[in-house]
């Protein structure tokens, strides 16, 4: 292998490591945000004790950070590491150990095609900030995230106990049901973006984002698709009101009932990584990605500062969505299992189909009008 290839590989690996650690820490802080927001909504204050020794010495900032619980995720992570590792005797060892990994890997793999900003160099050449600008962006995301269900199913099965098993079964049924609606709900988006006469084309997420530059966000053009996609996203990330696989109250934690210590931690982080990635994807698809506001050109000049601001703006949007996820979780009760199935197959899927057909007709009509 030549030097260039090695260099490129090293660069890619570095990027990947950076990205993984960023997403993981965002996931960790999403857990904190969940606890804090939940506490605030319930009139409590949430975690506010953990602090690093030298930080607590700083006069005003120290107590402020402590009250915000900024260091809680660190403590939680350490706790998961040092807890006694209990493996129940009745489990199928191999799959029992395999499933947390299977749950985490897809969650982290989907981020490779996720564009989070762009960089314009001095010559005016623009490169999107993305690990792999695959032409098939969204399909890749769907394909990989559909593998995430194996972690849950295997965990449920290998635990060899009733509640996890029910959780696994429920989750496999739920995932399959909502994947269809999810795919169908984004089809109109791509139809619109790829419609003849539009500047951008392809299934890549970058082109989707760029089509929203200086133009209305897709959520304004296709509110219904966005709505359907959001619901399906809730179901795919196993968030309340669709947290069938877990349902603490009726399945005692569902698929991870038999898991403890670090293995449970991995499931936990994987779940929140799904939420983070899901929010990021919604942002790229419907909320204009790193572009400023609908109809408004980016106020920042291209260049390093500009791209940093863009990434920050992208993250801000993503965090708002994560907040929405949390907000909904602490507002709504859980659906019953049969209601989930009915909603998926009898309501969401037909609606997505109708939505698709509507946009097919609309795009065709616009196309004909433009042609004549």
């Amino acid at each position, binding site marked *: 292998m030549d030097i260039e290839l090695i260099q490129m590989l090293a660069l890619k690996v570095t990027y990947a490591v950076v990205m993984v650690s960023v997403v993981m820490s965002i996931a960790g802080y999403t857990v904190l945000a969940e606890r804090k927001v939940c506490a605030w909504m319930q009139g409590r204050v949430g975690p506010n004790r953990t602090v690093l020794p030298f930080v607590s010495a700083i006069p005003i900032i120290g107590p402020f950070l402590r009250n915000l619980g900024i260091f809680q995720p660190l403590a939680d992570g350490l706790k998961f590491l040092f807890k006694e590792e209990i493996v129940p005797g009745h489990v199928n060892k191999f799959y029992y150990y395999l499933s947390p990994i299977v749950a985490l890997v897809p969650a982290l793999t989907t981020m490779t095609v996720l564009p989070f900003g762009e960089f314009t160099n001095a010559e005016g050449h623009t490169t999107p900030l993305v690990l792999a600008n695959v032409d098939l962006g969204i*399909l890749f995301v769907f394909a990989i995230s559909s593998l995430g269900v194996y972690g849950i*199913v295997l965990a449920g099965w290998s635990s060899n106990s009733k509640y996890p098993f029910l959780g696994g079964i429920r989750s496999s049924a739920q995932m*399959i049901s909502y994947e269809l609606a999810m795919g169908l709900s984004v089809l109109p988006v791509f139809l619109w973006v790829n419609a003849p006469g539009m500047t951008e084309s392809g299934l890549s997420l970058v082109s989707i984002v760029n089509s929203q530059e200086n133009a209305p966000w897709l959520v304004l053009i296709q509110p219904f698709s966005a709505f359907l996609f959001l619901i399906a996203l809730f179901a795919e990330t196993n968030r309340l009101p669709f947290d069938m696989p877990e349902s603490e109250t009726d399945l005692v934690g569902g698929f991870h009932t038999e898991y403890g210590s670090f293995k449970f931690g991995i499931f936990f982080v994987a779940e929140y990584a799904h939420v983070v990635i899901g929010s990021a994807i919604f942002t790229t698809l419907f909320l204009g990605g790193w572009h400023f506001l609908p109809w408004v050109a980016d106020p920042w000049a291209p260049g390093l500062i500009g791209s940093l601001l863009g990434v920050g703006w992208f993250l801000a949007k993503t965090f708002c969505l994560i907040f929405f996820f949390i907000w909904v979780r602490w507002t709504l009760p859980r659906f019953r299992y049969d209601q989930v199935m009915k909603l998926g197959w009898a309501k969401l899927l037909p609606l997505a189909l109708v939505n698709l057909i509507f946009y097919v007709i609309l795009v065709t009509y616009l196309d004909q009008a433009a042609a004549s």
Partner: protein
Amino acid sequence: MNLSLVDFLFYVFSAISVGGGLAVILSRNPVTAAMFMILSLVGVASLFVLLEAFFLAVLQVLVYAGAVMVLFLFIIMLMDVGPDSGKGAKLSKKRILSGFIALLGVGLLTVLTLEYSGVATVATDSADHWQDVTEETSAAGANIVFSKSVKSFGYGLFTKYMLPLQVAGFLLLAAMVGVIVLSKKTDDVDAHNKADGPSPGTTNPQSEEA
């Protein structure tokens, strides 16, 4: 030996898919078999990636590994098939027959592979081989070329291969309706028209939509 990276990866992924396939039929535990099948499918998808057919690769993972195999696992778990089922079965006539047919199939495949290997040469100039589809080429689907881009699949499917696509779709629909008819409890159907037996018309229209 002078292996390029692509060659090396090709052997790795082939080994994964073939080995996975073997493990599917050799493993006693149905869940293990299903997992190996996923592995094998992912291996095939990786081979598609090596061929730069990303679209196929992604679809392979999405449809087979992501959806179909989940259903497989679902069914396996629901039926609770133990690792022992089918162990004590004797060498019945059926088994001998199916073994024979399998051997025949393998033989046929080998012969065909040997016969046609070397016929298809890989174009060295990737520029003309992976030619992108333009609007003109698609006019009547006349000169569709195989290309890695998603567009070419779309144009191909909806122009030149429109009829096969429709037929395949229709077949699948028929299969689906058939499954619904078979799996539906026949009580209510019997009560209504015992003589006619279950007919597609009695199925739930809602499920047909789905």
